[in-house]
């Protein structure tokens, strides 16, 4: 394993039997799993290259049990790793050998649907898609739609601030959650926010969202729901050059049009997807854009016309406009299946997740091409082009000695390139363990220290999900020290009134 995790605490491991017994006292029956065979499904998440059996798995089904488990671990100095559905692509739910894996899979109930306030109050183990399904009969849906929405849990979505194809127009998870019940590492149960548009005081919901399970364990979430747009239509546009496709994206945004989704695929991705789902993608283009407009019919019709004109102005070589739901879904089928499609043409692949300014797209693609040659590994690119979020898929074969390490080095170089071009390390998958050691590419020690101080405000002993996000762990006491410089408040050189 290339990533170092915090050293195991032998004293904790020596007490394993007593710990398991104590946990059984809190969560009865099958809620505590300690046999190696039964813990197997929990030893990895969506980042499957990394595996680690936990010390024990606990599956509580009430907030009180979560609170008692955390309080016990807090008092005993035992590390805890929270887990939803285990679909994290960054290793956010990777267990620790001396840690309790706290699964929220039994929190599967939607607690309240409130159409008048346009919110759903749900337990964290409910899947993203199930929320939309529960309100579909009244024409509502929950907007963020990560590709894993059929499986990923809303609790995990909050932990990772998940995005999706439609977040260009409708925002990420953080823009669509209003409140939560959260249990701190100490076992304390807090309610943050609620059905109001804003919570009082500091925006704690905003900081909890995307905190990757390091601040607390969420046991209830209040999400906003929206009315489904009246219609949606898509354009599928091919370009002979990636640059032209990039220009088309910039011009659409520049014209004041915010599509519901705007996705780009490069040639290898197009070919892999077409071979897999036969969506009718053109095979002789270098880049394919799928642009979806949604809203009232009259608006969609008008905007489709404007986008068509922009695309032709950018030299599109193929252009199709969906005329039915079936056709629109077919356009999307290839894009949505891009990951498994690439999985068919390579034994293994690594999915990256950097974001760059939209305008830097052609430059980033050129750099990725060069890196592909340098590392002698193939790459297929799919992008959320509308918001500059790249998903290069690096193809490799783990059975070839050294190839996985080469793929990881290639991926790290892509992310460095994203930062260099004015972007960031991760757009929607999270830092987890995968990008942890790259954090200094983007943040100084001071930046990271400030983030860790915030962690201390929630979890002063650093017991919750340690080893994720931060490359270096500091003790809270050390981080909290103020260094006093200078003396009196006197600045002769500054203008005064």
């Amino acid at each position, binding site marked *: 394993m290339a990533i170092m995790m915090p050293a195991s605490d032998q004293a904790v491991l020596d007490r394993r039997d007593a710990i398991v017994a104590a946990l059984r006292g809190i969560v009865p029956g099958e809620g505590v799993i300690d046999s190696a065979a039964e813990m197997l499904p929990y030893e990895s998440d969506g980042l499957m290259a990394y595996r680690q059996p936990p010390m024990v798995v606990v599956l509580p089904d009430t907030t009180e049990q979560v609170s008692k488990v955390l309080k016990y671990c807090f008092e005993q100095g035992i590390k805890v790793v929270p887990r939803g559905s285990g679909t994290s692509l960054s290793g956010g739910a990777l267990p620790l050998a001396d840690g309790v894996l706290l699964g929220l899979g039994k929190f599967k109930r939607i607690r309240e649907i409130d159409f008048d306030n346009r919110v759903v109050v749900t337990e964290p183990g409910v899947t993203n898609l199930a929320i939309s399904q529960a309100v579909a009969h009244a024409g509502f849906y929950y907007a963020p739609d990560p590709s894993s929405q059929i499986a990923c849990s809303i609790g995990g979505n909050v932990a990772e601030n998940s995005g999706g194809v439609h977040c260009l127009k409708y925002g990420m998870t953080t823009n669509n959650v209003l409140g939560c019940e959260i249990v701190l590492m100490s076992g304390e149960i807090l309610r943050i926010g609620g059905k109001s548009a804003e919570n009082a005081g500091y925006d704690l919901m905003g900081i909890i969202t995307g905190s990757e399970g390091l601040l607390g364990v969420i046991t209830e979430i209040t999400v906003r729901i929206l009315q489904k747009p009246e219609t949606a239509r898509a354009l599928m546009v091919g370009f002979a050059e990636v640059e032209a496709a990039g220009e088309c994206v910039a011009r659409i945004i520049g014209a004041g049009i915010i599509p519901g989704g705007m996705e780009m695929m490069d040639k290898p991705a197009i070919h892999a997807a077409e071979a897999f789902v036969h969506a009718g993608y053109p095979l002789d283009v270098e880049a394919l854009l799928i642009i979806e407009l949604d809203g009232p019919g009259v608006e969609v019709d008008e905007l489709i016309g404007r986008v068509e004109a922009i695309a032709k102005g950018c030299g599109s070589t193929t252009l199709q406009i969906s005329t039915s739901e079936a056709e629109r879904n077919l356009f999307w089928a290839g894009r949505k299946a891009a990951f498994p499609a690439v999985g068919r043409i390579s034994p293994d692949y690594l999915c990256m997740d950097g974001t760059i300014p939209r305008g830097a797209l052609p430059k980033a693609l050129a750099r990725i091409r060069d890196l592909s040659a340098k590392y002698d590994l193939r790459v297929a690119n799919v992008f959320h082009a509308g918001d500059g979020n790249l998903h290069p898929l690096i193809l490799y074969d783990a059975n070839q000695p050294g190839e996985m390490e080469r793929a990881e080095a290639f991926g790290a170089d892509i992310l460095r390139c994203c930062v260099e071009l004015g972007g960031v390390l991760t757009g929607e998958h999270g830092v987890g363990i995968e990008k942890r050691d790259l954090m200094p590419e983007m943040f100084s020690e001071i930046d990271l220290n400030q*983030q860790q101080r915030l962690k201390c405000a929630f979890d002063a002993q650093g017991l919750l999900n340690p080893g994720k996000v931060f490359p270096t762990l500091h003790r809270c006491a050390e981080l909290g020290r*103020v260094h006093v410089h200078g003396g009196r408040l006197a600045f002769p050189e500054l203008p005064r009134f």
Partner: protein
Amino acid sequence: MDTLKVRDAKDVEQVVRAAIASEQPLEIIGHGSRRLAGQPMATNALLELSALNAVTAYEPNELIITVQAGAPLADVLSLIDSKNQQFAFEPMDTSALLGVSGSGTIGGMIGAGLAGPRRIRAGGARDHLLGAHAVSGFGDSFKTGGRVVKNVTGYDLCKLLAGSWGTLAVMTEVTLKVMPKPESERTLVLRGLDDVTANRAMTAALGSPYDVSGAAHLPYQAFRPAAGALAGLGAPGQATTLLRLEGIAASAADRASSLGKALAPFGAVEVLQDAVSAAIWSSIRDVLPFAAQGALGAWPVWRIVCPPASGGALGQQLSRDTGGDVIYDWGGGLIWAALPPKPDAQAALLRARVDAAGGHAMLVRASELVRRNVDVFHPQSGGVAALSERVRLSFDPKNILNRGRLLRAVAT
């Protein structure tokens, strides 16, 4: 009082470090346009950011602007307006309400985090702040976020900075999302509804697929002091419910027609367009009926945020119990209440009602004396209050930045 006019982030670091060393708290200001809001502070030095006023980068095609925190809001708005763009959260201009001149700086806009009518659709300041450079109470410059819309790298400290009233860090440069301005707007007007019925009409509109971007209700009393500000509405003396639709002209017109039909049970609908519509929404955004220069200028003003469907009943009850006037925005989720003056601004009564409705309330305008005697910001429950204080200390352990602005207890 010492005013330290900083020229760059380095100056800010130095001033904060010296303040730490001399244990002197600092009041952080841009133009000082919101100094009358919040708990009165006992600071004897001002850290003034108005010289940090540059636009670092404006990239219309990337939908972002990077500016220094002291840049005047009005200048930035006119710059992005020249490219037909806007801050979609409609930042409130508090000057009329507080009775000061000038709409302040970008830093002040974020620190206060007061969003206008479109918040129901586009979110608040916290949803549009993509990245920031700031100096913490440790005297260290740090950055958070980035210059792209989609970013989950590290904790999202931007969310905390928005609405923190300068108590966590001194922002020096920020990157904000900008959005295209809608080509056209329509406002549907319903007349004569009581508050609860109006709340139901707004709930119906916001639960429709017509993408309503403003939902406000002015009980007829609210017209008394606001004849000028709301001239475009005509027919004063009747309660007025307003629903805004924005987008390309054909779409706005089409949705206005569909929504009008859907709202038929609530009465006949009039339609206002473009400039007339825009002027009315900016009056609502800035709460002009309660302006300091107006008839209710001497009354304290509360800003109540609550679950939207309970707003009508809450506001109506408050109005009856206090003899005050209310204005509803956000479909009932935001209530502005101007109450007849009392030494505690009727805080006990108002907060009891607001708590019962699951909301929270800030006393936005009141005399210094009243603000000394009242919790300006809504008191939080024990555990959340303690966590919030730990969060604050994680940025500012020596309590240097805007000491006592949020919490009465800290000031004394």
